[in-house]
């Protein structure tokens, strides 16, 4: 009759290893925010680059492309190439 290996400590070991890695510091240095121009404020999302109108146009174009793709894949199957 054997005993089950004690895995209870495994999660703790992993957690401590992760903390050590984080404590070692990042390789990439912080960004110098003083480089931001007077035209810009901090970006929270890439979409912040676009105006509301630009976002709307982009969204409409992307929706159209996705629909074209679905239609092409649904209707192209019957063409025979020989």
């Amino acid at each position, binding site marked *: 009759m054997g005993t089950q290996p004690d895995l209870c400590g495994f999660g703790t070991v992993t957690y401590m290893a992760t903390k050590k890695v984080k404590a070692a510091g990042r390789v990439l240095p912080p960004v110098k925010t003083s480089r931001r121009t007077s035209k810009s404020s901090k970006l929270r*999302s*890439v979409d912040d680059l676009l105006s509301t109108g630009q976002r709307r146009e982009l969204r409409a174009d992307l929706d159209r492309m996705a629909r074209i793709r679905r239609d*092409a894949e649904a209707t192209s199957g019957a063409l025979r190439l020989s």
Partner: protein
Amino acid sequence: MPRPFIRCLEVARAGGAQTAVVETRYLDQDYRSEFSAFFSKTFPTTPDSTHRIHFFKRALSPDALWRLPPDPAYLGYVVIRPSPLARVGRTCLAVPPDLQANVHCAVACPVNFFGQELVVTAVPFAQQDTQLGRCAHVAAWVCHYTASLRGEVARRPMADFSLMADPSVAEGRQLPSQGLTGLQISNLMRDFGLPPIMYRMGELPVSGQEPPVPAHDSNDDPGLWDTRAIAVSCRFLNSGYPILVGTHDHAFVLIGYRRVRKPGSRDWISFVRHDDQRGPYLPVNDILNDTDPATGYRYRPWTLLLAPVPGKLWLLPEAAERSGRAYLMAWDSRQAQSVLRPLADAGRLTFRTYAIDSNAFKHAAAGRNLGLEAVREYRLARLSRIIWVVEAVDRRRRQRHQSCVLGEAVFDSTSSDEAPRPLLIRSPGAMLSVQTNGNIREPIPSTSRAVRSASPIDC
């Protein structure tokens, strides 16, 4: 002599071939699969082996064949099937010198020549045998074998493209074959690890920088007016992926393109194709009026484009390009001095899109003079295995064969067509990096000068 074989000899001659070596009773893996699946079952006796003809640019003597000189200038080979209907089997011939800059899908094809390892850079070609495999099978095989030589998929012998096509989704007999439908090709390529992106002429997506299509009636065949196929094809060819083109009754493979300058007008794009019925490395001068210049054969209008791509390439290149243009222009306008907008207003700005392994993209960063911080940011960024890159290109510098890339937007290839996910955006002078936890690192300084592309394919 059949036209494909004549064309193979033309290609070898164009490469400067001085010596042809005929290797008899060669056991070719692709022909052996065809023999097993078909020729062994026919009434006439057909040999189970082939001949293979090798071409060299150097003049070689017979006693040099087993000990070649250090640089034998190998030009490739043609496998000759014993079948009178279709002599040209698997073929890897070096790209003709006048097309070297225009064939984007060439790969390294290793060859063992009597115990000596040789390599030829070529796009594989073959002729259909007309019974087991038709043009569609061979076109699919060209796309697949090219990918297998790049290490992206496991190799499949030629007969698999006939035997493993699902007969239940099309009418007609599997043998002798009457060709493949678009659905059969799509299923086949998906099963073989290269699920294709399908495009139908007349309903092609645009990124917004394509010229308007010519005026036409609503009943006109789209193959006679849909010039959007040019941009669609170029994006995949920029990435080294061949394009399978279907007309009403035939299939062939686009393997490259050439940009021809027309002063006062947009550049004219002509393509290079492999046509199993006419030979390798043939020009396509006008996709709307497609005629083979050597024979005068008039192709029927194009109907379908299939781009077999790696399984993790989910995002449409058109969606990446549309988003990339918007983000690049917007990011550029945030800088102290906008560079892209004045160029766009002067008609000098264009965008070029290609897919690349992110590791190769990172590797290329150091040699592009991006600036130390930008290179560090690129190399330490977490990127998807394959990325779409949308480059902002100065047309005038490109025409002068100078470094012409002013900026780029990098996209996750696993993101959705409806929400392409940018990972890096760089315009002249500054870049930003989108980290996987959602944080954005910006602004990071980068060069404001034009640099060369990260793509190994020069367009």
